[in-house]
């Protein structure tokens, strides 16, 4: 699988991640259940307010899934930032990954690398991580 995503959405995820740094930013990009194309950015509050952990606040999580259901949407992309490590799923990310059909996007805002240089996408299914190419559309 390839993640095809618009340059506007990529920029929106970077802006969110940079704004929250050094706290981890998190959110989803919703898309229609019929075509599963990432379309609608929904930044979420990280209820852990932590540089090493994120969690969608529980009531906001329920409200999000209700809204997606009502609009016949799914969380096509689930993203978060790593603020001092590389953009690769950690053991924690793998343990919690609950959407086998989602693209798990990680962005690294760590200071040792060029800004906006690590934007990677993964599938996480039954504890197995596979990286997939990211194709940015509309540059």
């Amino acid at each position, binding site marked *: 699988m390839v993640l095809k995503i618009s340059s506007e959405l990529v920029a929106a995820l970077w802006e969110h991640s940079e704004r929250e740094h050094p706290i*981890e930013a*998190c959110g*989803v990009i919703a898309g229609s259940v019929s075509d599963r194309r990432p379309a609608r950015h929904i930044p*979420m509050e990280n209820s*852990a307010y*932590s*540089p*090493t*952990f*994120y*969690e*969608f606040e*529980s*009531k906001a*999580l*329920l409200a999000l*899934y209700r809204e997606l259901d009502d609009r016949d949407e799914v*969380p096509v992309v*689930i993203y*978060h930032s*790593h*603020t*001092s*490590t590389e953009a690769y*799923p*950690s*053991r*924690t*990310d793998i*343990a*919690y*990954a*609950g*959407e*086998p*059909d989602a693209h798990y996007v990680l962005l690294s805002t760590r200071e040792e690398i060029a800004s906006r240089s690590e934007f990677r996408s993964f599938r996480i299914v039954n504890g197995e991580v596979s990286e997939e190419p990211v194709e940015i559309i509309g540059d």
Partner: protein
Amino acid sequence: MNAASSNAIEVRIPTILRPYTGGSKTVTGHGATLRELIADLGKQFNGLDERLMENGALLRFINVYVNDEDVRFIGGLDLALSAGDNVTILPAVAGGADHCGAI
């Protein structure tokens, strides 16, 4: 079957657990408490209870809502249920860099 255990309760199942329910998004269970409901779901759908609980407690990365309230804040597994209550199960959306000690 006594009156309490005949409560019919609608349970919404998240995508990741639908292989256990034959693909159904919504199932009906019975139980006077959430603990009994989960046991009933495990009888109907083999193994489903083990994806929700371990050693008698709800798993950390599973959120269960009764009438839209997170059960962790309103009584947990011993919460009393009534006919017509609705239950929603959602996996937590969580993670983060390592060294967090959260699991």
